[in-house]
C-alpha cells in the first residue's frame, strides 16, 4: 500500500496543491464548489418534483437517464485515456518498478476523491433537494448519496477495465464495443422524450436502471427491490472482479499523458502535446474537409480557418458527443413540454462555448504570432473566431431543435426557442471579447480559467434572455403571428451579431500576445 499511497498523494498534491498554495488558497477552490451549489439544488429539486409526479417505471427512467449519462461520460473518457497521468508520472514513476495494480488503485482513488472534492458537495445538495422535493426526511439523502458514490466508483472501474482491455488486446475492437455500449446506454433516454419510443429504462437489466430503482426506493421510503439489489451487486461485483483479474496487466506503453495540469493551472506543454497527438491521429481523416485559403474575404478566411481547426483537432466531435450525452441525459424530455426545459440545454450550449474558448486559449493563441507579425490588424482573425464559435454552437442548437421536432407533437413557442438560439451568438461574442483580453497563464489558481467559463455562460444567458424579452415585448404590442415573432428574433440576432463583431474588432485592435 506504501507506493500506492505515495502515488495517490502525489496525484492529489499535483492536482490540488497549486490551488491551495495559490494567491487565494483554499478560498478559490471553495468558491468554485459553492458556485455549483445553486445549480445542484435546482437540478435535484427539479428531478425530485418530476419523479414525484411520475409513476414507478417513469420515475426509474427519469433517475436512470442522468446515471446513464454519467456512464457515457466515463465510457467517453475511456475512449481517450481512462487513466489520469501527468507527463511527469511517465518520466519518473512509470519508469520505476511499480506494479500496474498499484498505479491503477492510486489512480482510481484519485479520480474518485477528486470528483467528490469537485462535485461531491453539489451532488450532496442535489440529493438533499431531491428528498425534500419528494417529502422525505433529509437524512434519506445519505443512502441516496451513497448509491451515487458506489455508482461513480463502478463507472470509474469500468473505464479502467476498458483501457486495460484495449492495451492488452490491441487488435480486439474494444473501442468499437465501448462506442456501442455508450450509444446503447443513452438510447433509452429517448423514451423519456417520446413515450412511443420502444426502448425504455424500466425493465432493462442495465446498471443505470438497477441503481435508479434503488434510488427511487430511497426517495419513496419504500423497501429496496430485491431484483435490483441483486442486479446492482452483479454489475458492480462483476466489474470489480474483472478489474481485479486484469489490473496486473502491464499497460504503461498504452497510456499517454492526460492530466496536463493541476487544478487551476494550465500546462501548455502537455496540452499542446495532447493536441498534437490527436491532430496527427485524426489528420488523415479530417483533411478531407479542405481549407481553401485562396477563397473569400478576410473574415470569411478566418472563420473557415477556425472551423477547420475545430473540426480537425477533434473538438467538434468531442463537444458534439458531449452535447448529445448531456442533452439526452439531462432529463429534458422528462421536463415535459414546459418552457423551462430550454434552460438546461442553453446552459450546456454556453458551457460548450466555454470549452471551445479554453481550447483556443490553450493551444491556438500561441499561433497568433503568424498574424501579429504581419501588417494586418488582427480584427478579421477575432471576427472569424466569434463567427466560428457561433456557428458550431448553432449547429448544436439546430440538433436540439431537430430532436424536439422529432420527439414532440407540441411545438415550443418562439419565445422559448429564442433562448437557445440567441445564447450561442451572445456567448460566442462574450467568449471572443474575453479572449482578446484574458491570457490564461500557468498560474497557481487562474481566475481567467473560471472567468472564461462563467462569464461566457452568463453572457450567453443574458443575450438569450434579451432575445426572449424582445420576442415577448413584440407579443405584448400585438405581434402574435409566429412568422412576425420569428422576424423580430432574426432582427435581434442580426443586431446582436453586428454589435458583437464591432466590439470584437475594436478590442482586437489593441490585442497583445
Amino acid at each position, binding site marked *: 500500500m506504501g507506493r500506492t499511497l505515495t502515488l495517490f498523494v502525489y496525484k492529489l498534491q499535483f492536482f490540488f496543491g497549486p490551488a491551495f498554495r495559490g494567491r487565494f488558497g483554499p478560498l478559490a477552490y471553495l468558491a468554485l464548489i459553492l458556485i455549483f451549489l445553486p445549480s445542484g439544488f435546482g437540478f435535484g429539486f427539479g428531478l425530485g418534483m418530476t419523479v414525484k409526479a411520475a409513476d414507478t417505471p417513469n420515475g426509474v427512467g427519469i433517475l436512470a437517464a442522468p446515471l446513464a449519462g454519467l456512464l457515457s461520460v466515463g465510457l467517453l473518457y475511456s475512449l481517450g485515456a481512462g487513466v489520469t497521468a501527468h507527463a511527469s508520472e511517465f518520466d519518473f514513476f512509470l519508469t520505476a518498478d511499480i506494479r500496474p495494480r498499484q498505479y491503477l488503485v492510486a489512480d482510481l482513488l484519485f479520480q474518485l476523491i477528486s470528483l467528490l472534492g469537485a462535485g461531491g458537495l453539489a451532488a450532496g445538495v442535489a440529493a438533499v433537494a431531491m428528498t425534500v422535493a419528494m417529502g422525505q426526511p433529509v437524512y434519506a439523502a445519505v443512502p441516496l448519496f451513497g448509491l451515487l458514490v458506489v455508482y461513480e466508483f463502478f463507472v470509474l472501474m469500468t473505464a479502467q477495465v476498458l483501457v486495460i482491455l484495449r492495451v492488452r488486446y490491441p487488435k480486439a475492437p474494444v473501442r468499437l464495443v465501448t462506442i456501442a455500449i455508450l450509444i446503447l446506454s443513452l438510447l433509452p433516454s429517448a423514451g423519456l422524450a417520446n413515450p412511443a419510443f420502444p426502448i425504455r429504462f424500466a425493465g432493462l437489466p442495465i446498471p443505470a436502471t438497477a441503481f435508479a430503482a434503488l434510488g427511487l426506493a430511497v426517495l419513496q421510503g419504500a423497501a429496496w427491490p430485491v431484483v435490483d439489489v441483486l442486479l446492482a451487486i452483479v454489475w458492480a461485483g462483476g466489474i470489480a472482479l474483472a478489474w481485479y483479474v486484469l489490473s496486473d496487466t502491464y499497460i504503461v506503453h498504452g497510456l499517454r499523458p492526460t492530466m496536463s495540469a493541476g487544478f487551476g493551472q494550465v500546462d501548455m506543454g502537455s496540452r*499542446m502535446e495532447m*493536441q*498534437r497527438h490527436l*491532430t*496527427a491521429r485524426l*489528420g488523415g481523416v*479530417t*483533411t478531407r474537409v*479542405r*481549407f*481553401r*485559403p*485562396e477563397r473569400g474575404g*478576410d473574415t470569411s*478566411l478566418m472563420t473557415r*480557418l477556425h472551423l*477547420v*481547426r475545430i473540426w*480537425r*483537432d477533434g473538438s467538434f466531435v468531442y463537444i458534439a458527443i458531449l452535447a448529445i450525452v448531456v442533452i439526452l441525459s439531462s432529463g429534458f424530455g422528462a421536463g415535459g413540454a414546459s418552457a423551462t426545459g430550454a434552460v438546461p440545454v442553453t446552459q450546456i450550449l454556453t458551457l460548450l462555448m466555454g470549452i471551445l474558448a479554453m481550447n483556443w486559449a490553450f493551444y*491556438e493563441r*500561441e*499561433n497568433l*504570432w*503568424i*498574424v*501579429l*507579425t*504581419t*501588417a*494586418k*490588424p488582427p480584427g478579421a482573425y477575432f471576427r472569424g473566431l466569434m463567427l466560428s464559435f457561433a456557428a458550431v454552437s448553432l449547429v448544436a442548437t439546430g440538433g436540439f431543435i431537430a430532436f424536439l421536432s422529432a420527439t414532440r407533437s407540441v411545438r415550443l413557442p418562439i419565445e422559448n426557442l429564442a433562448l437557445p438560439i440567441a445564447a450561442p451568438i451572445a456567448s460566442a461574442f462574450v467568449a471572443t471579447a474575453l479572449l482578446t483580453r484574458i491570457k490564461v497563464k500557468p498560474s497557481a489558481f487562474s481566475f481567467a480559467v473560471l472567468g472564461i467559463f462563467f462569464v461566457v455562460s452568463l453572457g450567453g444567458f443574458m443575450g438569450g434572455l434579451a432575445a426572449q424579452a424582445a420576442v415577448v415585448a413584440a407579443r405584448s404590442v400585438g405581434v402574435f403571428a409566429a412568422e412576425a415573432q420569428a422576424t423580430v428574433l432574426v432582427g435581434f440576432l442580426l443586431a446582436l451579431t453586428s454589435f458583437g463583431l464591432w466590439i470584437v474588432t475594436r478590442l482586437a485592435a489593441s490585442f497583445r*500576445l
Partner: protein
Amino acid sequence: MVVSADRMALTIELQQLWKSYDGKPALQGLFFDARPGEIVGLIGPNGAGKTTTLKILVGLLRPDYGLIRVKGNDVLADPISYKADVGYMPEAPTLPEYLTPNEFLGYVGRIRNLPRDRIADRTRELLAILDLAPKADETIASLSKGMKAKVAFAAAILHEPSILVLDEPLIGIDPAGQHLLKERLAAMARAGATVLVSTHQLDTAERLCGRVAIVNHGRNVATGDLAALRAQAHTGAEGSLEDVFLRLTQEAVAPAIEPPRPRGWFRRG
C-alpha cells in the same frame, strides 16, 4: 528630426533598448544596426536577451525604453506598416498543426496580402526547394520537427521580405536542410536583403554572418566582424568565434544599472 545619410542606409537600427519582466532586466541599453545585404548574427548565453530583442524588433513585444528604426521609420510610432517588409521565424515556432503545409502557406500568403496566383506559385516553389513537396497535403502535426522548422522558414520568406529575422532557425533541422537554409539566406543577402540571425551555433555564425553582436545580460559585449571581435577579445588572428565568445562572456559582468526614466506618456526615449 534630421537623419544622416549614413543612418538612412541602415535597415535596422536599435538604440538604448531596455526591457524588464516583472522588474527583472532583460535588456539594458542594447543597441545594434544592420545594413542591406548584410547577415548579422546575434549570439549570447541563455537568457542574454536575444529572443526579447528579436521579438521587440518584429513587434511582438514593446520595449520599456529605446528607439527602433526599420528602414528609417520609427517602429514605435508606426508599429504596423514596416511589418510588410519583415519576415520572422521564431525560436521553436508554434504552427497551426491542423493545417497542411499547403494550406498554411496559403493562409500566410493571404494575411501577407500576396496576390492569390503569387501565393500558389511561391508555395509550390518553396515546398519544392525545401523538400516538403511530398508532405504538402499532410497535416503539420504529422511532420517531423525539422520539417516543421522548414515550414516555418517557408512562411517567413514566402512574401520575399527585405528584412529577415530568424531566432535559432537551424534547431532540429538535419545537416542537409541546414545547408539548404544557409544557402538560401546567403542568396537573399546577396540579393540585398538584411538578415538577422540569433543562434547558439557559433561555427555557423562565424561562416554565415558578416558581423556578429555578442550580448550578455541584455547588454552589448562586442559587435563587429570576426577580426574586430578577435582584437577586442585578444584571442589572436587564429581565434575562433567560440574563443572570442567564451573570452568575452566569461569576463566579469558590470553591475546592473538604472534604466533611463521614460519621458512622456509613451515611455519612449
